[in-house]
């Protein structure tokens, strides 16, 4: 029995976007390293069961790992709003939706990064990605600050996001990633 009414809200919100019709996986609640490992394994199993091509499965695993590790590092506990990750499909394309509560500092950091990525021209993006990778510095916590960039790059820039204030200094960060089957099988 699902007690948290927010799950229904999440599905309603995602359902309204009408990007996909088939729900393949929904993870709801706090995330830790064990949840990440289990989610990636489950996602792989579900996608293999549905006979998605290996290219798409591989990229989904990498993107989900980055999304969930970002959630793990930046999530803020909140009574009503819990992190979620949904994988869905339609017409052989995959959709990964995720959300979590973040602080104002994280909001400013994320907005600054993503706004910067969107300003880079498509033809220059690979060079930008390589330069960012080369010049990044690993913190003592092992953060390279490249997670969002990697998601952006691997989704061929098919990433949308919104950040909504839910309380003082707390924001809901939602990210939607689309993986188009045709774009990937041709890479």
């Amino acid at each position, binding site marked *: 029995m699902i007690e948290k009414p927010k799950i229904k809200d999440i599905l309603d919100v995602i359902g309204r976007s009408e990007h996909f019709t088939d729900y393949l996986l929904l993870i709801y609640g706090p995330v830790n*390293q*064990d949840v*990440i*490992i289990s989610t*990636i394994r489950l996602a792989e199993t579900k996608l293999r069961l549905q006979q998605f*091509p*290996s*290219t798409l499965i*591989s*990229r989904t*695993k*990498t993107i989900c*790992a*980055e999304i969930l*590790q970002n959630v*793990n590092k930046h999530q803020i506990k909140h009574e009503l709003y819990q992190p979620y990750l949904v994988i869905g499909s339609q017409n052989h394309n995959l959709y990964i939706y995720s959300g979590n509560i973040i602080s104002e500092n994280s909001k400013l950091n994320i907005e600054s990064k993503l706004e910067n990525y969107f300003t880079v021209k498509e033809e220059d993006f690979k060079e930008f990605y*390589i330069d960012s*990778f*080369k010049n*990044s510095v*690993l*913190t*003592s*916590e*092992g*953060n*390279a600050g*490249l*997670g969002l*960039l*990697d998601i952006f790059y*691997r989704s061929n820039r098919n990433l949308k996001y919104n950040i909504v204030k839910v309380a003082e200094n707390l924001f809901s960060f939602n990210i939607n990633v689309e993986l188009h089957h045709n774009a990937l099988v041709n*890479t």
Partner: protein
Amino acid sequence: MPRLEIEATGSTPEVLLDGETRRLNIRGICTPENPRQFFDPIFQAMEEYEKNHQELTIEICLDYFNTGSSKCLLNLFYMVSNNADLKPNTVVNWVIEESDPDIKESGLLFEEITGLKFNYPINNK
């Protein structure tokens, strides 16, 4: 002979650095919460290895890895490519899946950045 063995976990690969066979093998999944913490013993063992050896075969076979680990792998390749004694005698086998172009692309990226020459054997697991 320096030797480092790390067993695989759900989020980290198995690692074997063997001074006798002159090989460094990294195999599995690499998404540790703190990649720096995971890679530090490898860097330390490599520093020791470099003092006594002038050749090395690195074989990396990863299903997937996170960006922090990617940065650590880059640092590992920098370590090798910056060592004049080791660099000409280092073989890097970046094992790929035929059906997964992403892993090969990552290898090509490391190759481009570090100037090391990579081989791309197909995984025959």
